[in-house]
């Protein structure tokens, strides 16, 4: 067992365990912090898969942006000193049965497929190739996403604003 395997299993356990705790913990703030560990574990798996740029973007956008936004949402919609921050669950039995079936279907399809077993030849840093195809083949989608972000931010500000009259 090489050092690569050990690091893989560490990040896998971190991702799976904290992903499970995001759903099961009763406290919303605890859920948000377990989500932090899940996102961190996924970033580690990206590093192991030689996707260095995506791993850094994951840390910056998810951990630095979306998670902070979620924590602001928790604080704006709950009274933190109150016990209201604990919430319950509904319909737990049928939901678990249904998603168990879903996961069984996904895993059985995955095990029946003949995947390419040996890893491909990815360059040592993917940032150069990523930037090249982002500004040549996918430049239209790139510009559209810029417009989408602008529209979403203007829309979010106008929805969350308090009416003056």
């Amino acid at each position, binding site marked *: 067992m090489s050092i*690569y395997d050990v690091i893989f299993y560490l990040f896998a356990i971190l991702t799976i365990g904290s992903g499970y705790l995001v759903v099961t913990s009763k406290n919303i703030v605890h859920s948000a912090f377990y989500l932090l560990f899940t996102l961190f574990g996924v970033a580690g798996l990206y590093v192991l898969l030689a996707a260095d740029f995506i791993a850094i973007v994951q840390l910056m956008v998810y951990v630095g942006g979306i998670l902070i936004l*979620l924590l602001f949402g928790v604080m704006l919609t709950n009274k933190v000193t109150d016990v209201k921050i604990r919430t319950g669950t509904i319909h737990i039995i049928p939901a*678990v049965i249904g998603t168990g079936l879903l996961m069984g279907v996904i895993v059985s399809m995955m095990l029946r497929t003949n995947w390419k077993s040996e890893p491909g030849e*990815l360059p040592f840093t993917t940032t150069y190739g990523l930037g090249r195809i982002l500004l040549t083949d996918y430049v239209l989608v790139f510009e559209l996403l810029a417009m989408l972000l602008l529209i979403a931010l203007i829309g979010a500000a106008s*929805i969350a604003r308090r009416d003056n009259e």
Partner: protein
Amino acid sequence: MNTIPMEYYLLISAFMFSVGVTGVLIRRNAIVVFMCIELMLNSANLALVTFSSFLGDPAGQVFVFFVMTVAAAEAAVGLAIIIAIFRNKLTVNIDEINIFKW
């Protein structure tokens, strides 16, 4: 150097997706539902990066980049909607926000 088979990464992805679906179905708080949606988006990203890495083609990582952008936009608009609902109804429990039902 890489001795981990591809199926292990895909298993982690499948587990994260299933946990996210379960959370969307069973949790009452809208913000926790949001976190579970982020879990599902992350599992799709992990599958895309796995395929990209094992095929040796960086095009899959471009799509991960796009998914992250859309997720950021979705989080901003969704939280704005949740805060607007909280201002009107004073709750974010999704089983109490049933004004479309009659």
